[in-house]
């Protein structure tokens, strides 16, 4: 079975011609040819043996073709010699040339046969790119880890980890539904692409618990001749009503403070700078990782907040920067962050679980991606914090926006208390007027 797959990889006619070469050389070859064929054979056995023992992928075996081709060449010469001894030179030449031409014809057909389905991925990506031109802020979500979709579509792309690739997986629909909600702020349309068996039914909006008109099947691209697999393109449109009810408000006006009720976050407007002792606590993790920027004692940090980064994300040579900047978007101070790798600002005081609304004003200096994260635990923040991403937002350069995100922490049974985190994945932003208020009755009802 292994040798069958190997010959398929190296192309069967070439393998057969090479085996014929060994046979003919050992039967009627000259001493030198036998010597050379033995050496090549020994090399071939050694190379197959250690690869078979140590590595699994077939690509490692493709170098064997370099040993097969000389045997392929000598095969036709020995064959010509044999036929010439019996049938004469002309016939021998004709038969040898004919057989070699057949081998080349096989190679040519294999290489140049039209394969329209092999380009399904590129075709789908280019089709999405053309479709996306009608939208202001399109984005693309793909599963399966095939980076070609991003490469050929050239639109903002996310490949969420943790969603299984296969539809028959029972976790697929719940995880996909959650992922779509997380990315609902990511663009005005989200193209969603994945490979699926052609017989599998279409995913419907009801299955994903999406409103009518938010989820739409757009197009399918066949991936093979027998139509076993296909690429399906769906569109998820959060829509203006979704944006108004539970998404973001695309305006530069901050929300009215009086109507929003109590702000459960301490120092959400970043107007209070931390005292030196607390400042050291705020940057403790980053300074401990050797980021010299955060060791500066003149750096101003907001009281009631902490900075951190995921493990292995920020190293001493990284140019991450954060701190209070003046003037603020409203008031004296705002919080500025600049990074190429995830840098997290989170509120230090825990809040009891409930249904909240998070609002904040943000100005992006360059293209940025920000994730809103909730760190929650059952009772107190001792150990075992879990996290949940409530939204991933994308900002263009020089964009000012006020965002409103619902935080349905009550829906999580194991959550008792939580903290809010702003994870800047890359870019440069100024953050101000962060408010966490109890959700309005209308929103509570919707949630």
């Amino acid at each position, binding site marked *: 079975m292994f040798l069958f797959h190997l010959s398929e*990889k*190296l*192309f069967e006619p*070439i393998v057969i*011609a090479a085996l014929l070469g060994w046979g003919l050389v050992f039967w009627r070859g000259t001493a*030198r*040819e036998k010597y*050379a064929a033995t050496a*090549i054979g020994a*090399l071939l056995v050694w*190379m197959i043996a*250690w*690869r078979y*023992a*140590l*590595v699994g992928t077939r*690509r*490692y075996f*493709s*170098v064997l*073709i*370099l040993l097969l*081709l*000389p045997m*392929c*060449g*000598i095969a*036709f*010469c020995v064959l*010509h010699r044999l036929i010439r001894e019996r049938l004469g030179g002309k016939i021998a030449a004709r038969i040898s040339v004919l057989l*070699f031409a057949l*081998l*080349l014809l096989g*190679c*040519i057909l*294999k*290489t*140049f046969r*039209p*394969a329209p389905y*092999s*380009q399904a*991925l*590129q075709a789908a990506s280019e089709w999405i790119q053309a479709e996306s031109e009608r939208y202001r802020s399109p984005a693309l979500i793909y599963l399966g880890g*095939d*980076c*070609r979709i991003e*490469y050929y579509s050239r639109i903002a792309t996310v490949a969420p980890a943790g969603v299984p690739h296969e539809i028959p997986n029972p976790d697929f629909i719940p995880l996909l539904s959650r992922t779509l909600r997380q990315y609902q702020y990511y663009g005005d349309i989200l193209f969603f692409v994945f490979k699926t068996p052609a017989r599998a039914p279409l995913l419907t909006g009801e299955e994903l618990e999406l409103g009518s008109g938010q989820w739409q099947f757009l197009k399918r691209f066949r991936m093979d001749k027998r139509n076993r697999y296909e690429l399906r393109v769906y569109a998820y449109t959060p829509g203006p009503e979704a944006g108004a009810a539970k998404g973001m408000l695309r305006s530069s006006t901050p929300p009215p403070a009086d109507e929003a009720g109590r702000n459960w976050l301490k120092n959400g407007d970043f107007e209070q700078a931390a005292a030196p002792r607390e400042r050291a606590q705020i940057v403790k993790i980053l300074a401990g990782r050797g980021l010299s920027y955060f060791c500066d004692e003149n750096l101003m940090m907001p009281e009631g907040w902490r900075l951190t980064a995921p493990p292995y994300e920020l*190293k001493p*040579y990284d140019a991450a920067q954060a701190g209070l900047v003046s003037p603020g978007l409203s008031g004296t101070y705002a919080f500025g962050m600049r990074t190429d790798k995830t840098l997290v600002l989170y509120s230090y005081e825990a809040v009891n679980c409930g249904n909240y609304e998070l609002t904040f004003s943000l100005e992006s200096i360059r293209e940025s991606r920000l994730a809103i994260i909730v760190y929650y635990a059952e009772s107190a923040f001792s150990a075992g914090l879990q996290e949940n991403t409530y939204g991933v937002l994308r900002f263009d350069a020089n964009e000012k926006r006020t965002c409103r995100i619902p935080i349905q922490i009550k829906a999580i049974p194991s959550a008792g208390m939580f903290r809010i985190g702003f994870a800047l994945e890359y870019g440069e932003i100024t953050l101000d007027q962060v408010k966490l208020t109890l959700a309005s009755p209308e929103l509570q009802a919707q949630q």
Partner: protein
Amino acid sequence: MILPFLFLLSGTVRILARILHPTLDRDAIDYLNIATEMARISRAHFYLENPLNWIPPFYVQLVGLGINCGFPAEGFGVGVNLFLGALLPVVLFLIAEKLFQNRAAAVLTGVSAAFAPVLIDFSIGALREPSYFLFFALFFYALLRMLESPRWYWAAGCGAFTMLAYFCRFEGLETAVFFLAAIAWAAVNRTIAVPRALLLTLSNLLAMAATLVVGIYLFVIPLAFLGRQFFRLSCRIANW
């Protein structure tokens, strides 16, 4: 005339195949992304940021160099492979000619290499294989020349091509085993005298070391990575 003919033939076949099959392999996109990232930030910075995803540097850094010179990543990456892929049948012709002392067999080898689908598939993408195959084939050519006339420079050539193959794919190191086996066989058969065999082995090792040092310098490879690769290989052998 045969060598340019083979080069032009294989080059034409590969260009036509590329026109017909423009979609890149998944790995090819990864390599292009790595090369683009290397061109954007410094190579040393890239290695520090990606210590766990280190791949042999020859191809990606060559593409990175092309990007720094203003070429598009995909165009340069594929162009390099088309060129190297077109050279391979020429080297295979030379190998077959030395191996069998038969010009017709060598031509047939070269022509079949020009049309071999697996070689074409690799040449029309942005993959590491064409450079690896070329250095692997050049190693064998140098080895055959050394066995024919045991001069130090052919042995040194074997060493240099071993290391270059290693900088393309890790399994390129196996050619060092082939060299030692060939020289031992030649010494046992007395086709090469033992002192001469030792001298050739020494030249081979020195050339390998020199190429490794130059490669580490040129490719800005942190030494810890090489150590890790040897460690991983040892673990795999031990597990096996």
